[in-house]
């Protein structure tokens, strides 16, 4: 077997980034424990990027970092550059309080899990929209016209929803109304942290379809954070996989699903219940992911990894370019194809495609 030269990089860049995250870290305890560890990531203008990780992988911390909203006493370092459609780029971490407040909602908007905790239970939905518009000095009448249209886009009856209080709506309606509210100031970017996790699957899937429509209609860029890899696979153009507070793999969705090149991603794909894979072959990932105060040296996945070698125990891997814009932070990504078969693929598709990979 010929060993081709392995290309390394610290991050996988895209052509027209709207947000560039560079070496973003969040520490507590005066720098001794990291809850986000050197994440570099581009969000391309107009794309939907799915960020996938288990509980405690740092994925929500990444969302907070994007808007410089890391909870105290966390310390955020690195740069997060926002490139608006026109005008100069800004480093979000350098903005003063007033500029940051304007940026949130007007440029980058966020939707969290559990709409009930985002709404004020004593205020009608109409008041939520009006107050949001007023707080950002927007024309309320024009804004409410947009609100009507957004609610209709989300298959809600605008007049009925606007005159309701949050508790009068079902969970699925609340979450859709919250998405409409997050878009009423016409932001460029929508960041969503488990926006559908508390809902049943049918509502989750319906909302995903609607998000896809909204993205086209309003030229949005979306970052969708979830623990549910198959869910976001249906929506995302690219996927980024997080493990133990680090980004460990990124690539086009089709690449990740069919040619994942990190042992963790491959194990994650095999551990996910779905309707296609043979039941006998699905298996859980052995062991547990590490806590921030107990991070292993080297690659954080090495204690659970069947391919771990001495190098993995001492050295944190860079991204190895697997193909095009597909990167994997693993020294042994090639071996992972043979050692960890993807059970959801048919036998003929499981091999590494000839000449396709570097």
């Amino acid at each position, binding site marked *: 077997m010929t060993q081709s030269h392995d290309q390394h990089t610290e991050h996988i860049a895209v052509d027209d980034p709207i947000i560039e995250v560079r070496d973003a870290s969040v520490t507590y305890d005066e720098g001794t424990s990291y809850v986000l560890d050197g994440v570099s990531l581009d969000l391309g203008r107009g794309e939907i990027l799915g960020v996938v990780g288990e509980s405690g992988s740092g994925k929500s911390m990444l969302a907070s970092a994007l808007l410089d909203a890391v909870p105290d006493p966390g310390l955020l370092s690195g740069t997060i550059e926002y490139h608006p459609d026109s005008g100069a780029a800004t480093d979000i971490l350098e903005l003063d309080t007033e500029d940051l407040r304007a940026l949130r909602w007007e440029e980058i908007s966020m939707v969290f899990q559990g709409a009930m905790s985002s709404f004020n239970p004593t205020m009608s939905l109409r008041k939520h929209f009006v107050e949001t518009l007023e707080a950002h000095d927007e024309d309320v009448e024009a804004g409410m016209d947009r609100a009507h249209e957004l609610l209709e886009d989300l298959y809600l009856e605008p007049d009925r929803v606007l005159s309701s209080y949050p508790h009068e709506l079902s969970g699925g309606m609340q979450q859709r109304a919250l998405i409409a509210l997050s878009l009423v100031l016409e932001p460029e970017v929508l960041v969503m942290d488990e926006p559908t996790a508390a809902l*049943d*699957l049918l509502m989750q899937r*319906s909302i995903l379809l609607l998000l896809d429509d909204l993205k086209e209609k309003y030229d949005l860029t979306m970052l969708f954070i979830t623990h549910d890899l198959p869910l976001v696979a249906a929506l995302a153009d690219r996927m980024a996989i997080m493990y133990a507070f680090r980004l460990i793999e990124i690539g086009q969705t089709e690449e990740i699903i069919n040619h994942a090149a990190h042992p963790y991603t491959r194990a994650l794909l095999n551990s996910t219940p*779905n309707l296609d894979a043979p039941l006998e072959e699905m298996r859980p990932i052995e062991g547990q992911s590490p806590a921030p105060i107990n991070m292993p040296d080297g690659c954080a996945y090495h204690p659970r990894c069947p391919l771990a070698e001495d190098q993995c125990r001492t050295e944190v891997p860079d991204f190895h370019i697997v193909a095009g814009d597909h990167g994997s932070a693993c020294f042994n990504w090639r071996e992972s194809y043979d050692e960890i078969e993807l059970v959801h693929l048919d036998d003929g598709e499981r091999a590494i495609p000839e000449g396709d990979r570097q």
Partner: protein
Amino acid sequence: MSEPVISLENVEVHFENERLLDFGNDPETVRAVDGVSVDVEENDVLSLVGESGCGKTTLGKTAIGLQRPTHGSVKYRGHDIWEIREGNSDADLEWSDIRTSLQIIHQDPGSALNPNRRLLSILSEPLRQVNPDLSKSEKRSRIYSLLERVGMNPAADFADRYPHQLSGGEKQRVALCRALLMNPDVILADEAISALDVSLRVEMMDMMLDLQAEFDTSFVFISHDLSNARYFSSHGNGKIGVMYLGQLAEIGPAEQVINEPQHPYTEVLRWATPDLSLDDHGEMPMRKIDIPDPINPPSGCRFHTRCPKAREACTRANPTAYEHGEQRVACFREDDTHEYWDSPELTDD
């Protein structure tokens, strides 16, 4: 075939929703469960799936005697459990025995474990009830071996912890241990794995299935996720029941319901279940996103307001279950001679 452990016959659970400050009007009636018949066999794994508000939790609770049906009967090994509970039965069974045999684990195990007691004490309680004669050291060794069995090593260390010192997955295992120590015939697992990360669900389901064989118990598994229901019921050779607005739309052996869904609503749930095939799933196969209000369910077939295949005939009568091989399907399309086929399609405008 031997007698079912639990047998539900034409069960209805209607809740009266008294509106405050609205005297004079009749109270609203929520038809949470409306005419369901289903059996739970020995060592069965019955999954109930459906949207939020479809009545699956109410049906599950009714099956284990936590909710009294307003109509129909719930039988435990042939004896009506509500007659026994009220002392109107001459059966040789006490309510307390039945209560012990039917256990539940919830979606949020944290709220079901006493925060002020250590695991050893939490898990000693069921043993004390079932085996009052066990010595302290026998109890301890049973608890330790069960904790080890569910992967909580070292058991002595875990037994000494309080619930808040456990992860979500560990709490769920403790809840499972506590249910198993009662030596139950049936455990109702109500969205018991839904709060866990996707990657931990297979592990938890494997453990439940392993322990099922060992403890000789049945599961009623409630989930909104068809792929979890498939994994759990297929491994346990059980059935999947699909519920819609208080009624069973379809029920049958797990792999058949997944691979050959007969009811249009089962197809909708299948469409909604994420997979890794990356095929374009296309348009939403439903005419409306939101489930109708169970206070005022649609006339005729309850799914007709959203069903992509609904015709005029579906608005008039509510289909009863048709046999389709081993499946039971509540849809007129099962009957080749039904007036459905000659009636006009429903459109929304």
